[in-house]
């Protein structure tokens, strides 16, 4: 038996928030029926793990502000620069408040009877029942970090996912609609999807009751793997963005007037900050500073590099010149694609994934987008949804230990050898895993599309989604914010 002091049975960055803390009786009742009940070790916090998570959390913040804000802002016309920066910063602030007040509880607590697969309850709303020293279990039996750190880490995910989506309808959306979106979308769409993908009872609960049914989110229950948010973050944001872009309609003059990015310099700076922050995003999703955080780091380097190079080469081949925007788009596509695979694929598998992501997203952002005629301003669908889907599906293949992947931990095996802290790797079957991954992708797409549509309809009725033609022509900086980005 391997000394696997490591993560997950099937899901990605989830915690034993419930069974081990809120409801310890769940873990203990089942084995009590059997003779010689297995007892879970006491949760121990390691300062190294805590430190890594504190660090990861702040560099994920850096991804959104200023990373994503500059990446997006540089791609719009100068008359809309400040609108993007304001929208991203406002979403960062609002989504954080939403997460602390009720988002976290909806995502990571046991839900109402019959609906627990879809969303959690309000037992931790406004951080009730979260003591300052409360612990949540990581992916190793008995290993924990402090819950407040986990809440902060997940809060930065909530903010960046919400901010990612709005790039699809940039340059024409009302700021009031953005504010409403930042409250409603994380509540109705994001937090429940987190619950579906990452809510599980934790290692100790399963290890101590290997034969009991596992109360988890719907997608976790499929056995689907999503290490750092391919479904939760990227498919979710990409689909929400596309639905919004279709509802708002194309920008005035789209396809007729030139709309070149006003500062690819800032876009490059933003993309570079995204890459740096992504080590916190993927590495932090391991929740422990161990070898699998190292694997996530290696994959976040190599897949990203592969996608940057492949987009550059294919653009050079088909369009004649290797552009900076193409190169950084490839980098972001690689980061997205490796997100669900980052703790599962081996580095060479991740390189293949990255190379594919650059080519597939190039095809979507050029050929498919112009053929279908939708105006996804900043290619949130073409990059985040498409690379997210590609990564989510291929994670099911690349996790195979025979391909250098990490395999998945079978927590039901932990206690069999008498040492509950060591667990076996589950048997891998490609078809089973691919079916689970595909189901996860389909549920994520459907949930995001329907939930986001509902959110947009509510906003459209209350505030309206789109600015007037006059305001759009003048630019949102002046018409919505009364400022201009550059006074030169």
């Amino acid at each position, binding site marked *: 038996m391997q000394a696997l002091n490591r993560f997950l049975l099937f899901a990605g960055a989830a915690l034993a928030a419930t069974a081990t803390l809120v409801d310890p009786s769940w873990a203990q009742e089942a084995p009590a029926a059997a003779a010689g009940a297995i007892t879970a070790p006491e949760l121990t916090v390691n300062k190294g793990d805590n430190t890594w998570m504190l660090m990861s959390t702040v560099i994920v913040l850096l991804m959104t502000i200023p990373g994503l804000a500059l990446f997006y802002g540089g791609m719009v016309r100068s008359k809309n620069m400040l609108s993007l920066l304001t929208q991203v910063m406002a979403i960062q602030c609002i989504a954080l408040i939403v997460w602390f007040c009720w988002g976290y509880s909806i995502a990571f607590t046991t839900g109402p009877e019959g609906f627990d697969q879809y969303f959690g309850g309000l037992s931790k709303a406004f951080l009730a029942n979260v003591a300052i020293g409360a612990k949540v279990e990581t992916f190793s039996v008995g290993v924990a970090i402090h819950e407040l750190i986990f809440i902060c880490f997940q809060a930065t995910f909530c903010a960046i996912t919400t901010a990612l989506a709005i790039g699809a309808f940039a340059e024409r959306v009302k700021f009031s609609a953005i504010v409403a979106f930042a409250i409603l979308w994380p509540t109705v769409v994001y937090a429940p999807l987190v619950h579906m993908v990452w809510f599980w009872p934790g290692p100790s609960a399963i290890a101590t009751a290997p034969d009991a049914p596992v109360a988890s989110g719907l997608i976790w229950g499929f056995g689907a793997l999503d290490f750092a948010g391919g479904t939760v973050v990227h498919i979710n944001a990409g689909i929400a963005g596309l639905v919004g872009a279709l509802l708002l309609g194309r920008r005035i003059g789209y396809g007729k007037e*030139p*709309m*070149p*990015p006003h500062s690819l310099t800032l876009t490059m700076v933003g993309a570079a900050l995204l890459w740096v922050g992504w080590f916190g995003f993927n590495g932090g999703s391991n929740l422990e500073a161990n070898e699998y955080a190292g694997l996530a780091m290696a994959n976040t380097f190599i897949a990203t590099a592969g996608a940057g190079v492949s987009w550059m080469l294919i653009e050079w081949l088909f*369009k004649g*010149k290797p*552009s900076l*925007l*193409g190169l950084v*788009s490839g980098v972001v596509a690689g980061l997205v694609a490796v997100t669900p695979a980052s703790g599962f694929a081996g580095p060479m598998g991740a390189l293949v994934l990255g190379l594919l992501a650059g080519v597939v997203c190039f095809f979507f*952002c*050029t*050929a498919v*987008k*112009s053929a279908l005629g939708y105006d996804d301003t900043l*290619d949130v669908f073409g990059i985040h949804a498409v690379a997210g889907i590609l990564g989510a599906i291929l994670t099911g293949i690349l996790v195979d230990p025979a391909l250098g992947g990490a395999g998945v931990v079978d927590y039901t095996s932990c206690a069999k050898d008498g040492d509950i802290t060591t667990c076996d790797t589950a048997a891998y079957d490609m078809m089973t895993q691919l079916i689970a991954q595909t189901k996860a992708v389909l549920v994520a797409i459907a949930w995001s599309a329907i939930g986001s549509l509902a959110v947009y309809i509510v906003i459209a009725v209350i505030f309206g989604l789109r600015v007037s033609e006059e305001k759009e022509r003048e630019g949102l900086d002046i018409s919505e914010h009364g400022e201009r980005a550059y006074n030169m």
Partner: protein
Amino acid sequence: MKLVIAIIKPFKLEEVRKALDEMGIEGLTVSEVKGYGRQKGHTEIYRGAEYEVTFVPKLKLEIAVPSESVNKVVDVITAMAKTGQIGDGKIFVTPIEQTVRIRTGETDDAAL
């Protein structure tokens, strides 16, 4: 008095200015302009969205000179701004009715 208006390639400015300075021309005005003549623009591609950029960046020089110097000025600009490629630009010469130096109130040739 004549006004010489020259549209030239931006990187030729310093050579033209130096040659005019050496022949005793004491001032000129430069503006950044865009336009097109026989030189075609170029295509810019951003993630597959292609834009034809018709207008090419050029510099516009305006030089007021005494009538007797105008041919020499035109010759100097022609020589210095020439690369032999399409897009070298054009020179226009028009008469000036009146010139005033604001500081002193001097007029016409004395003001040049």
